[in-house]
């Protein structure tokens, strides 16, 4: 047979004229990207193989960056509101006019009452910069979005072990043999988790997924634990119970690296439950050899975990005894928790056994000598290859702080934290609470704030409250309502400002947060609060300034819109001072730089903020002669110094660019980053890569790189003493006293040892009328509300069906094509249903933030995002339903104030036949951008 004729193909077409390497910002994972340019235009985006975060891979959002960059929803010029708030009617104005307006509004505030500016930022990654600006302005009312995101995770991690998951650390993907994943659909470490799971799969390591829903990562989990929402803490404590009973815990690790041996003061009085301390204030332990209480770090002692010391007839027991006594209780036996958690006792035992087996029978030994902070030399690094990771399935509950604590306790008890095969910190973590700042709110007219806004309180003395107990911050962070609200409470700002509680503000300044839609609870009411007027006809929240890059829902509610650039059009700095991109074995930071110039009248928000700061004459932003100190954000990144020698970027410092971590500003620094692919890394020496909190080599290296100013070794807090201090206050000790209605709750929930209590909604009497749990998950191919403007991504997830279990499906007689109405104590929504069997039977869920308000994001008003989709947020209230005690309790974690998104309870009904549009259906906002093209066929071919 003749060879068929084939057309001649050009197998080596020119891929691009040039590759520009920068950092992705289709989400907060911050992968490195190669932007292929043709004729000066963006032609194709792929992953940067050399980048520490993604090593070449790229997720769907990252690959679709070009469609985000070209989105028809991009704002085009500064906007001044002309219609009523929420209508979306604007007039385009010049930058001069916009900046003048902002200056006219803000200048008098700074001079009279700086706290009347509330400046809150959402998805941004320049918090160290915006916080610095707000501090210079002098308002105490600044925070980023962590309070509604995952502060439970962060705070529990910092207080327990000096770091948590994601930005703080990662599993030792290359060595882990058993991996437990709690409540994660996607997480910020989007590509690294997938790459890590891929590594585990390639090695045949076991993955256990604990999640009410088996999709995504949990779909590939070898074993799936379809837990009932809100009960992870109980399940974890049951695992602890089993491990204790079997003696499968690493006693040596506990003695060396944790406060397990610390003696807990048992004397009645204001010291009860605090550590027994020596005269020098050092916590004491019992030395088994002598039976005496000695300083915890005294040389040549054998700290006891079992026995205590008698002083004046009172026995002071070590932390570990308290711990063992508590968790060995039959209350935590698998049989006792099985029903609540929805997990069979045999399954709990099997998982505990597997943890024990892998931790202790598959121990890893690296032949890597190292020296600990006591000066003891070790020939090897011994690891317990069980790693864990958790995120918002644990964190977004009103028991999330303590649940995350329980999880860390489990990791610590088996001795797997910072050991090979276990969980590893990423620098600049570990960093214990003591090494973090305390929160500040001291303000006075015309003056900068007295210190950084956020921090980690170590006791009631660090709360930001007036003498009468009134919160100093508009979000009531660091008040008795949420004493350890380390990230602030962004989700409370609008409702508090609207209510004038604890005081009235003047200007609400938001950046990159869609607060009129998907990041607020009770969205419909929030939209009303933003538009609500006083009897004299003025808005209750007098002024709203907002910076967004796109025509989001929130834009429609601003008085002044400062349009930002897209991520390919500006400088950004992913800084060690902020939310870095380090890996467990390397320090790393990175930049974005304008790979293309904006084609609209938009400006990078950070540069605008510097400009505004200069107009306001803020300290640090103007020279002595009053002229602006920084040309733009790039100039700030290069020249700003936080402490001498420490600036936003750690790489290529010093005049010759060789400084790593420390060094004078280098005018050529940004170019050096660009040449290097947009990032900088610095590897941790081999002998410093594990046992970081206790490893002398690591501590010295960290000091040399500017992470600390002096070595900061510490031990893990199985027992968190600061929590006990709040309990003591609740018991009536000390001068700062909580209001009476909070005493019982503080005593219960601020337990210094991890506890589990039912979520507030589960504990509520109304729970029985709302038998189901309702959750959202992040779709891997969308980032919050941004995905829907992306022509490629919106085809993947264009609506939000309600996934319901086979059990409910049968119970309610659902059929394909049906719709359901979900009701919570607070509201009602209607959505199409889809059956999913791999789901906890009492749980329903839908995708997060895909739903859109009509008219927003340059989408057709009949787009499925508006007509076949809605937010669960409509069912969630920032306050719990009234309980008859005359008080409305916050729907948040009582320790950190974290928004309890996943505490939601609902009931379900089949919607009447004929339902074709989702409910609620909000009126359309008019679009500040022109109508998009109908069809796309984008190509930059020569």
């Amino acid at each position, binding site marked *: 047979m003749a060879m068929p004729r084939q057309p001649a193909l050009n197998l080596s077409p020119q891929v691009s004229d040039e590759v520009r390497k920068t950092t992705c910002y289709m989400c907060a994972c911050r992968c490195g990207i190669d932007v292929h340019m043709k004729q000066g235009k963006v032609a194709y985006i792929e992953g940067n193989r050399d980048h520490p975060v993604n090593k070449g891979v790229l997720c769907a959002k990252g690959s679709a960056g070009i469609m985000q960059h070209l989105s028809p929803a991009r704002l085009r010029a500064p906007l001044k509101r002309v219609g009523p708030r929420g209508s979306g009617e604007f007039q385009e104005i010049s930058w001069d006019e916009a900046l003048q307006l902002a200056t006219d509004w803000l200048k008098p505030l700074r001079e009279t009452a700086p706290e009347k500016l509330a400046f809150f930022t959402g998805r941004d990654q320049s918090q160290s910069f915006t916080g610095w600006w707000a501090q210079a302005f002098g308002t105490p009312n600044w925070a980023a979005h962590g309070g509604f995101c995952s502060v439970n995770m962060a705070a529990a991690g910092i207080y327990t072990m000096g770091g948590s998951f994601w930005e703080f650390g990662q599993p030792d993907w290359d060595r882990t043999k058993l991996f437990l994943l709690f409540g994660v659909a996607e997480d910020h470490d989007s590509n690294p988790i997938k790459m890590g799971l891929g590594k585990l799969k390639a090695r045949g390591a076991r993955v256990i997924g604990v999640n009410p829903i088996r999709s995504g990562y949990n779909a590939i989990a070898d074993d799936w634990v379809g837990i009932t929402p809100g009960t992870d803490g109980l399940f974890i404590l049951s695992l602890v119970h089993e491990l204790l009973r079997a003696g499968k815990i690493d006693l040596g690790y506990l003695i060396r690296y944790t406060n397990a041996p610390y003696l807990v003061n048992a004397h009645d009085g204001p010291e009860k439950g605090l550590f027994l301390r020596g005269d020098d204030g050092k916590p004491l332990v019992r030395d088994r050899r002598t039976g005496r209480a000695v300083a915890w770090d005294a040389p040549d002692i054998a700290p006891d975990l079992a026995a205590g010391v008698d002083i004046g007839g009172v026995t002071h027991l070590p932390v570990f005894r308290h711990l063992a006594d508590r968790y060995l209780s039959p209350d935590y036996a698998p049989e006792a928790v099985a029903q609540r958690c929805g997990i069979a006792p045999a399954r709990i035992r099997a998982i505990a056994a597997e943890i024990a087996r892998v931790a202790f029978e598959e121990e890893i030994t690296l032949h890597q000598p190292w020296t600990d902070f006591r000066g003891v030399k070790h020939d090897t690094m011994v690891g317990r290859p069980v790693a864990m990771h958790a995120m918002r399935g644990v964190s977004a509950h009103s028991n999330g702080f303590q649940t995350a604590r329980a999880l860390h306790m489990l990791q610590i008890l088996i001795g797997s934290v910072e050991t090979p095969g276990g969980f590893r910190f990423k620098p600049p973590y570990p960093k214990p609470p003591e090494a973090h700042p305390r929160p500040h709110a001291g303000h006075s007219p015309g003056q900068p704030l007295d210190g950084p806004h956020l921090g980690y309180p170590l006791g009631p003395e660090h709360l930001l409250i007036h003498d009468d107990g009134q919160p100093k911050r508009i979000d009531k962070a660091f008040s008795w309502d949420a004493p350890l609200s380390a990230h602030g409470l962004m989700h409370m700002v609008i409702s508090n400002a609207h209510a004038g509680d604890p005081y009235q503000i003047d200007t609400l300044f938001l950046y990159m947060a869609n607060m009129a839609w998907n990041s607020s609870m009770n969205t419909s009411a929030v939209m009303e609060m933003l538009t609500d007027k006083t009897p004299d006809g003025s808005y209750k929240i007098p002024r709203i300034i907002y910076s967004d890059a796109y025509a989001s829902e929130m834009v429609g509610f601003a008085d002044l819109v400062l349009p930002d650039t897209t991520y390919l059009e500006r400088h950004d700095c992913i800084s060690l001072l902020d939310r870095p991109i380090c890996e467990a074995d390397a320090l790393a930071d990175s930049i974005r730089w304008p790979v293309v110039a904006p084609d609209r009248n938009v400006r990078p928000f950070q540069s605008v903020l510097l400009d505004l700061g200069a107009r306001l004459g803020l300290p640090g932003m103007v020279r002595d002669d009053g002229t602006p100190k920084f040309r733009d954000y790039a100039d700030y990144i290069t020249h700003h110094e936080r402490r001498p020698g420490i600036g936003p970027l750690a790489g290529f410092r010093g005049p010759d660019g060789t400084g790593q971590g420390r060094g004078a500003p280098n005018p050529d620094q940004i170019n050096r980053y660009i040449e290097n692919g947009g990032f900088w890394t610095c590897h941790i020496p081999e002998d410093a890569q594990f046992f970081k909190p206790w490893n002398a080599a690591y501590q010295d290296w960290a000091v040399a790189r500017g992470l600390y100013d002096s070595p900061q070794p510490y031990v893990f807090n199985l027992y968190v003493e600061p929590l006990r201090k709040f309990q003591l206050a609740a018991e009536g000790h000390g001068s700062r006293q909580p209001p009476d209605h909070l005493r019982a709750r503080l005593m219960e929930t601020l337990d210094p040892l991890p506890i589990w209590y039912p979520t507030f909604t589960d504990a509520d009497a109304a729970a029985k009328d709302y038998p189901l749990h309702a959750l959202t998950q992040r779709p891997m191919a969308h980032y919050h509300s941004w995905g829907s403007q992306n022509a490629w991504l*919106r*085809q*993947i*997830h*264009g*609506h939000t069906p309600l996934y319901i279990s086979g059990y409910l499906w049968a119970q309610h007689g659902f059929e394909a094509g049906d719709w359901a109405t979900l009701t919570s104590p607070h509201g009602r929504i209607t959505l199409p249903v*889809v059956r*999913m069997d*791999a789901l906890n039977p009492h749980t329903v869920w839908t995708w997060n933030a895909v739903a859109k308000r009509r008219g927003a994001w340059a989408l057709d008003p009949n787009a*499925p995002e508006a007509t076949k989709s809605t937010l669960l947020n409509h069912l969630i209230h920032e306050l719990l339903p009234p309980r008859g005690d005359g008080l409305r309790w916050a729907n948040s974690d009582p320790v950190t104030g974290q928004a309890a998104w996943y505490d939601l309870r609902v009931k379900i009904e089949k919607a009447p036949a004929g339902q074709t549009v989702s409910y609620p259906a909000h009126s359309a906002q008019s679009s500040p951008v022109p109508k998009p093209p109908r069809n796309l066929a984008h190509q930059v071919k020569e």
Partner: protein
Amino acid sequence: MHPAPSLILFTVLSGMGFGLLVWLGLGLRAPTGLAAFILFGLGYALAGAGLIAAAFHLGHPERALKAFSQWRSSWLSREAVFSAATLALMAPHAAASVFWDRPLPLLGWLGAALALATIVATAMIYAQIRAVPRWHHWSTPPVFVLAALAGGALLAAQLTLALWLMLALGLAMAVHWVLGDQQFALARSDTGTATGLGRFGRVRLLEPPHSGRNYLLREMVHVVGRKHARKLRVIALVLGAVLPALALLLPAGYAVVGLALLAHIAGMLAQRWLFFAEAEHVVGLYYGKR
């Protein structure tokens, strides 16, 4: 499969046209002069109209000539070649019949063979598609061939022939339906084999790949209700074959032939609509549509 109007029209009309040409070529009826003009004209018009309708279905009709190139392997290409050859070879025979009252039987026979081949090729375009089990069956070509020949015979006013062909067509349609109903199952493709996951348990689509629409769903996945299908089958059978056959039992006359013709065309349109609409493509298994 999506019942595209252009394809339904094409297959029905051009089928009848080529069927008529078969009879005209065979000389079963050898009209001359005006009658020849009308009949050949009708044959060419129907075949041509069908081809034009088919061209509407193409994304790039301007490149249609390229479709003549792959006759060695492609039934669609063969259809193009045969149809063009039919029209070309039949032309002298037609012209001679119309203008000189002298048919050219040799060319006529050749043309008839090619016309028949065209009809078979059309049928084979569908019958070859294994991914549509209902089509991929020996009973598909008889339906196309008998429909074309019966319609053609009616047009040619070969009433007795038409009567028998109508009965045969009715039978062929019935056989095609009855056997066709089992073909998907016999093809042994199910969600288990489509995904290879059948060995683990019962496989069900949880989520389609995109919430947005796509070409495949539009083109290949068309679900007709069973009740609907049964009704249409009766209509197709009665109008397409039974009614024309009954009419042909009546004393001949223009009215009778006209009635039979109208019923037949309506019936065949229904049959053809169903032929597409009822045909399930195995790709539906990937979309939970079966």
